Structures are given as structure tokens and as C-alpha cells.
């Protein structure tokens, strides 16, 4: 059952990711990206990360993607024109990507020849309680620093997006 769920949602994730790359219209890419994030949330659940799965759906698929769709609809740029960047990039980059993927897969297979089987329910330390306990004890300082980061991001976004005063 775990294997079926993994293969199903891994396939959905990969197909949606390919769709993100090949679609010409940004709105189709954005909706495919929501598909990637949703299937990744299911995979997080299989790995026992309940809190992260919920946060993935709420923060990524909810907030961030709504922001993207908002901007796409606001700008209304339409479909992308065909690239003038030339075929050189494609010819050079495509084999490099395939080689990268092959090398990484080889290293993973060699480095983890007997990696553990992923069984749902075997690791139960990813609930909100465990994450909260670690977040407010060992990771308290990084957590506080992120609040400063978010404050800076808010100020930056407001400054960038405000109307120019003539």
C-alpha cells in the first residue's frame, strides 16, 4: 500500500513538474506547481512528517501560490513568446542535466545500498507537538531570527510595490 501511494504521487509530482517547465502560459505552470506541492505533501505524510505536510499545503499551496496567481492575473502578460536565447543553451544544458541526474542517482544508489524501507507509521516524531518542542527549545534563536527576516521582507515588499511619489 505504501509503495502504491509512493509511486502514484511520485508520478503525479514528476508529471506536474514537467508540465511546469513545458507550459507556455504562466498560469498553467502555476496550477501545475500546486499539483507538485500537493503530491509532495502526501509524500511528507508517508514519511511521518504530519506538521510539515500541513504546513506545505497551507503555506506553499495556499499562500505562496495564491500570491503567484495574483501577480500573474494582475500583470496579464499572456503566453510566452518563443525564446531567442538560441539553441546553444539547449544543446549544452540538456546533456549536462541528464549527466547530473545520472551521477546523483549513481551516488545515491552507491551511498545508500541498504537504505531503510519507508513504512508509514514507523516514525511518529513529526507531529505538531514534537516540532513545537524542538522549535522552542533547541531552535529558538533561528526561530526568532526568522521573525526579523519576515519583518524585513514586509518592509521591502511595501517599499518596492508602493506608488512612486512625484
Amino acid at each position, binding site marked *: 500500500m505504501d509503495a502504491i501511494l509512493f509511486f502514484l504521487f*511520485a508520478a503525479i509530482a514528476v508529471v506536474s513538474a514537467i508540465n511546469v517547465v513545458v507550459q507556455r502560459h504562466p498560469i498553467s505552470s502555476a496550477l501545475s506547481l500546486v499539483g507538485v506541492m500537493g503530491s509532495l505533501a502526501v509524500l511528507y505524510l508517508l514519511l511521518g512528517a504530519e506538521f510539515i505536510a500541513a504546513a506545505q499545503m497551507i*503555506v506553499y499551496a495556499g499562500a505562496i501560490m495564491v500570491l503567484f496567481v495574483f*501577480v500573474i492575473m494582475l*500583470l496579464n502578460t499572456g503566453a510566452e513568446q518563443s525564446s531567442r536565447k538560441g539553441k546553444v543553451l539547449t544543446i549544452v544544458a540538456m546533456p549536462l542535466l541528464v549527466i547530473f*541526474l545520472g551521477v546523483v*542517482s549513481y551516488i*545515491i544508489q552507491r551511498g545508500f545500498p541498504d537504505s531503510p524501507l519507508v513504512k508509514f507509521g514507523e516514525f511518529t516524531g513529526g507531529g505538531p507537538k514534537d516540532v513545537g518542542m524542538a522549535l522552542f527549545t533547541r531552535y529558538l534563536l533561528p526561530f526568532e531570527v526568522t521573525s526579523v*527576516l519576515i519583518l524585513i*521582507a514586509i518592509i521591502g515588499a511595501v517599499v*518596492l510595490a508602493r506608488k512612486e511619489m512625484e
Partner: protein
Amino acid sequence: MPPLPVPAAVPLSYYLILSAVLFALGVAGFLFRRSLITVFMSIELMLNAVNLTFVAFSYQHKQVDGHLFTFFVMVVAAAEAAVGLAIILTVYKNRGTLAVDEIDSLKL
């Protein structure tokens, strides 16, 4: 016809390979796409692939630390999306285009 032999569980390395595939697709989108917004979405795709690696290793070590790294990556991604989309709005307002090869003022 006998049913296909489906394994009961998959090894953890499958998750890592899936994340490598998603990362490579993100890099492909980053390199080949022309629209600034799609390039930005490819970066989000790469961040998601890395998050999957963190959670998978967290499962292997039976520790919650990887989940916290994922959490912090999400926070940074949210902040980045807010600022980045504001920059995209400003660029479009000033130049009327989102094609990355036409926004080249910094080029010599």
C-alpha cells in the same frame, strides 16, 4: 493473469532520487524559460525538491531536525516570494516586459 508484484514499501533512496528528478526539472525550467514569473516558479520547485530530501533524511535518522530545516526553508521561501513578486511588479511597471533576455540593463 497474475497480479503485478508490488513491493510493500519502497526504500528511502527512491525518495532521494525523486527529489533529484524534481530538482533537475527545476533547473531546466530556470534555464530554458523566458518569463520571469516561470523562472521564479522553477526556483520554488527546486526548494521543494530540497525539502523532500530534508524530510527523507529526517526519517532515516528518526529525528525531527530535518523537519525544522524544512520549516525554515518554507519561511525563507515565503519571504522570498513576497519580495520577488514585488520586484517583478516593479520591473513590469517600468519596462513593460517580463522576458528575462530583454531585462539586461546590467549587461556591459
